[in-house]
């Protein structure tokens, strides 16, 4: 143990020195000089102070849609890659939901659809996870990135074709992955099931997204990089590195492989999907309300704290397991430290909304995004508490963690995405949503569905954990008591799936409807030149 402690001390010293150097550089070059004016870079002149809530109702006052010819030129270039990314994401959402619901039903109807290997629970569940993470969430959020980034940087998207190629390869790879998993070809680790041969294709695709974002940022027509940009640029650099290291074949074995597994699995959430989602919240909330976020300087702390703490939480999945004590404790400490970035984001996002409740009532897009942000806060608090040893002993191996995973990966990311799509599509297509009354239907289906889902699994999971810890009760008790909760989860999941069908149908309708002449001839004034 001694050499390890010495090594860790030396390492901490070195890292602190490096961090101090960086801090001195940052202070001396005024990287940390922050003011609220910089929070206004997301607006174009005349936009601040007006709610931005387009295309939800055909009768809406047109004044709420501020028209800026330069930005129309920017939007026209992003529209194609973004449409490809969002459309395929929505398709994956529908397919992924069906697989998820099937897996849920199979847990309490174990003999339903039981005669085919590809329909066995272990495969259906895996296909569900990979589709919703890599299909729906990743592609959808990339669609948001390539729509918002050029607007935020006030310049057109660079290399739009490269982003399209990336989207194409990503989708083909994911399709191949689904067939591989269905036939039982898997790498076999949670979150890393996709065979590494196909992963290499996904890695190439993810690399295709790096250049368009970074080049667009480099060519920006504003001095300041808005907070959303930090999250997104960091995420787009992190993902290819993470993904390639974790999928290197033959390098890791046994217990070490388990640490690599959870280093990756929690970082794909913490350093990929979370920054994409938090960044989206940082853009859409002030943009829809028409006012800058509450405290811009706080966002800097939130960003670096997320990077530092979230990157080391992964081993809390191995608490009580066959890995060194110190690495488990390290991850628990970092999990608790996650309160810092989460609270800063919560202050910024929720206070901005709370001060403008009129917008929350008026804009359903804001309602989705803001609820997603609230669920990020809740899921993160829950995750920090779940990592405590005493709590973890009860809930670790139970359905409670499935509820927690969906509070984060579903409500946070998906609600943010739903709101973003409702906000963006009228701009991308130039049309209003054809059936605005379907939007609240979608909203309430997923909200009620998820509430049932989450409450059932959280309560059932705690009872399951307590039963397993009670040596006087047979293991069978923990299975038998769970059944009604699993059935309730299926009811909730069915409502969510229904909501997704409504959403997907509406998405198809706005995409396919004929554009009204007035909008399709929207002025394509002078192309925006690079800075």
């Amino acid at each position, binding site marked *: 143990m001694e050499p*390890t402690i010495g090594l860790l001390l030396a390492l901490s010293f070195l*890292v602190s020195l490096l961090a101090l150097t*960086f801090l001195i550089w940052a202070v001396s070059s005024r*990287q940390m000089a922050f003011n609220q004016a910089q929070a206004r870079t997301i607006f174009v002149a005349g936009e601040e102070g007006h709610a931005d809530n387009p295309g939800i109702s055909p009768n809406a006052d047109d004044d709420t849609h501020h028209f800026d010819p330069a930005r129309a030129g920017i939007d026209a270039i992003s529209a194609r890659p973004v449409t490809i990314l969002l459309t395929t994401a929505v398709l994956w959402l529908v397919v992924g939901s069906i697989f998820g619901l099937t897996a849920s039903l199979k847990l309490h109807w*174990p003999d339903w659809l*039981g005669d085919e290997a590809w329909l*066995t*629970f*272990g*495969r259906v*569940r*895996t296909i569900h996870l990979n589709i919703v993470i890599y299909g729906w969430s990743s592609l959808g959020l990339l669609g948001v990135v390539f729509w918002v980034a050029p607007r935020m940087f006030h310049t057109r998207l660079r290399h739009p074709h490269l982003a399209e190629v990336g989207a194409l390869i990503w989708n083909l790879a994911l399709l191949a992955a689904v067939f591989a998993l269905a036939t*039982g*070809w*898997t*790498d076999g*680790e*949670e979150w890393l099931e996709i065979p590494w041969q196909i992963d290499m294709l996904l890695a190439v695709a993810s690399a295709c997204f790096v250049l368009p974002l*970074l080049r667009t940022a480099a060519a920006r027509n504003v001095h*300041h*990089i808005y907070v959303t940009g930090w999250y997104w*640029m*960091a995420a787009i*650099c*992190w993902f290819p*590195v993470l993904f390639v*290291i974790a999928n290197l074949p033959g390098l*890791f*074995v*046994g*217990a*070490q*492989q*388990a*640490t690599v*597994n959870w*280093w990756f699995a929690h970082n794909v959430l913490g*350093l990929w999907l979370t920054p994409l989602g938090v960044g989206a919240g940082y853009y859409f909330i002030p943009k829809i309300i028409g006012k800058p976020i509450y405290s811009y300087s706080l966002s*800097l702390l939130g960003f670096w704290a997320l990077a*530092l703490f979230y*990157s*080391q939480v992964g081993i809390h999945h191995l608490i*009580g*397991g*066959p*890995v*060194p*004590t110190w*690495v*488990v*404790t*390290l991850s628990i400490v970092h999990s608790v430290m996650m309160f810092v970035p989460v609270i800063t984001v919560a202050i910024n996002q929720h206070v901005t909304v709370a001060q403008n409740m009129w917008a929350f009532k008026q804009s359903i897009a804001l309602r989705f995004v803001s609820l997603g942000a609230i669920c990020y806060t809740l899921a993160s608090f829950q995750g920090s508490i779940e990592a405590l*040893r005493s709590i973890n002993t009860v809930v*670790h*191996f*139970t359905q409670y963690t499935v509820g927690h995973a969906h509070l984060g990966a579903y409500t946070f990311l998906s609600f943010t995405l739903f709101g973003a799509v409702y906000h963006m599509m009228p701009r991308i297509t130039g049309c209003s949503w054809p059936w605005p009354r379907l939007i609240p239907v979608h909203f309430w289906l997923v909200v009620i569905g998820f509430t049932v889902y989450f409450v059932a699994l959280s309560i059932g999971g705690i009872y399951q954990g307590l039963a397993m*810890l009670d*040596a006087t009760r047979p293991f069978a008790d923990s*299975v038998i008591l769970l059944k009604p909760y*699993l059935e309730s989860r299926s009811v909730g999941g069915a409502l969510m799936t229904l909501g997704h069908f409504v959403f997907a149908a509406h998405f198809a309708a706005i995409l396919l409807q004929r554009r009204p002449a007035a909008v399709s001839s929207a002025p394509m004034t002078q192309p925006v030149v690079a800075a």
Partner: protein
Amino acid sequence: MNRILPLSILALAILALATLMLVVVPGMQINAQPATPGLQPYTAIQLRGRQTYVSMGCVYCHSQQPRSTDQGPDGERGWGRPAIASDYAYDSPHLLGTMRTGPDLSNIGARLPNQAWHLAHLYQPRSVSAWSIMPAYSFLFEVKERAAPGDVVVRIPNGRGPKHGVLVAKPEAIDLVAYLQSLDRTMVAPAHAERDDGYAKSER
């Protein structure tokens, strides 16, 4: 922050630090330990069975990592002594698992060595445990008019078997059971083994 390059470099440096702490250093410690004395490498048949275990996704409901008695009653349930890193020296992919919808299987071979029990349980879990919600793996079996020489005939209790003919286990089922039977980590753990001792009750 208005600079892209420092942002990207610092972001990647933080990821490198996390990789060092969660991947490299624990890896060095774990790899410094030889396989637990008495732990056997898998045979070719057991490895084929393990592959079936992996491809069916058994890991999503069954862990293979008994916790210490200071943390929970895993030992009292017969799941085995606390898992140590060197128990997994031959495991790739690792199958530690994160869920106990079903019981821990680290030592299932020592606990339930009977091939006939496993085959019947795989064909229809509810024929042996009425309360089970485990999927039936009936597609790993076939129904024949009569058994050929060398066929492993499976008898299913409680009338849950096929109505006609004899039920024969396919090679995948036989290999899978061979893997399950091989799961035996009951050998004594060496002193100074690597595991999470964070729950250990102080002896002083």
